[in-house]
């Protein structure tokens, strides 16, 4: 077993991850490291993943799901074929972005936009609660103060789209966000 074998495995895993999460843009047929696999199995796995996301998004946007019934699944499948989110808040990102996407797309019935706005806000709140939870604070404060940890994944999703932040204690003891570009990289001596 050589380093080429390991590299081949790494490339295969990346290609498979793409084929499963972005089935509309990444076809296993065009990918040499996947072309020998049973394409039906790959497609079925991608479908399982979309179903799992659909079920989670239904729970997050319960009101919209009850209002649209089967249409909800149809719309979500279209959304999921071009959108995929990674990370611990992926469930909330799906719900947040899908509600935004759906609000732009569907104007009927009239109260749908109000319902979506409300559910969107609730999901944003839940997502941010995840990030500001005390458990994270308890275990990561020391690293944050030292600026040793790349905590870009800790930034609320609405911000992480545009900025990479480091959270630090402000002069009054509260936590404040500093854009990463304004933070000096820690040196080996530090």
């Amino acid at each position: 077993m050589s380093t080429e074998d390991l590299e081949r495995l790494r490339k295969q895993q990346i290609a498979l991850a793409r084929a499963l999460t972005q089935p509309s843009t990444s076809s296993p047929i065009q990918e040499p490291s996947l072309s020998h696999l049973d394409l039906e199995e790959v497609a079925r796995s991608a479908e399982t993943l979309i179903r799992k996301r659909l079920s989670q998004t239904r729970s997050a946007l319960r009101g919209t799901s009850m209002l649209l019934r089967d249409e909800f699944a149809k719309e979500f499948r279209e959304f999921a074929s071009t959108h995929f989110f990674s990370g611990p808040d992926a469930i909330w990102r799906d719900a947040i972005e899908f509600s935004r996407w759906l609000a732009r797309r569907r104007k009927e019935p009239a109260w749908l936009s109000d319902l979506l706005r409300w559910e969107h806000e609730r999901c944003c709140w839940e997502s941010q609660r995840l990030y500001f939870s005390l458990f994270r604070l308890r275990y990561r404060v020391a690293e944050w103060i030292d600026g040793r940890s790349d905590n870009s994944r800790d930034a609320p999703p609405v911000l992480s789209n545009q900025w990479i932040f480091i959270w630090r204690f402000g002069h009054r003891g509260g936590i404040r966000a500093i854009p990463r570009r304004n933070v000096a990289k820690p040196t080996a001596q530090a």
Partner: protein
Amino acid sequence: MEAVVAVAVAVAVVETKPVPAREPLRSLGVGLGYRPVHRDEIFAHRSSIDFFEIVADHYFSASPPKLAELDLLKSNFPLIPHGLALSIGSADGIDQRYLRDFQCVVDAVRPAWCSDHIAFTRAGGIDIGHLTPLPKTSASLRVIRDNLRRVQDCITTPLLLENITESIRYPEDEYTDAEFLGRICDENDVGLLLDVTNLYINSVNYRFDALEVVRRLPKDRIVQLHFVGGRMEEGRWVDSHDTTTQDEIWQLLEAVLSLAPVKGVILERDEKIPPLKDLIPELERARDLYRHAIPA
């Protein structure tokens, strides 16, 4: 010359120093995968549940009520943390942040053992959010070995790895299921969390004898079992985790218990979760099998 001999003797002494033997794991009995919807019912059925398996990931970013829930569980039941995304088969290596979070939960719970899956969930910066099978090759074994070393540097609690339902089979497989699982356990000193339902589903979908796989596994490595019902969809079994356990799976569970010195059995219901009282008959049936096979 004497100095060289002295150094050689010293090296020999260091090399022959016995590795401290790990204490045998204690038997936990028959328990349940903890789901928050059952929180209010668990004390009413305290005597039917020997231990809980908790999803470690649910406590990584826990709110104060969630941490209080963990304290409540920890004070009243033995707990086993079960991870979902350690991604032990990831060729990119282990996510240090996930490992730290997992370690925090293990340190907080101080369990008899902890567990995750033989799979990868992350590659090229993409969190797939799903357990993806590995090819059964030496390259996969090497990746698992390297990743496990990093995990075992941080977590000294015994680790079990679970077989998953395979949605994809690789033509380049070099090992059979039993060989692959056996090598992972023996080469890395980890235990096996044998998911009987996953093994049954794979055996039906890919047409092999599940019991033969169990017979070929290193029995003393099988520490814990998972079981639950699956379902048929479009001509294939899927691990839906949403129904009562089928007879075929009970038979396989009984066979495994008669072959291996299992320390714990977990009913792992994830979807369409009924009230706890509806799961008690399955727990009692599993307990009968466990007691019959492994007398106290």
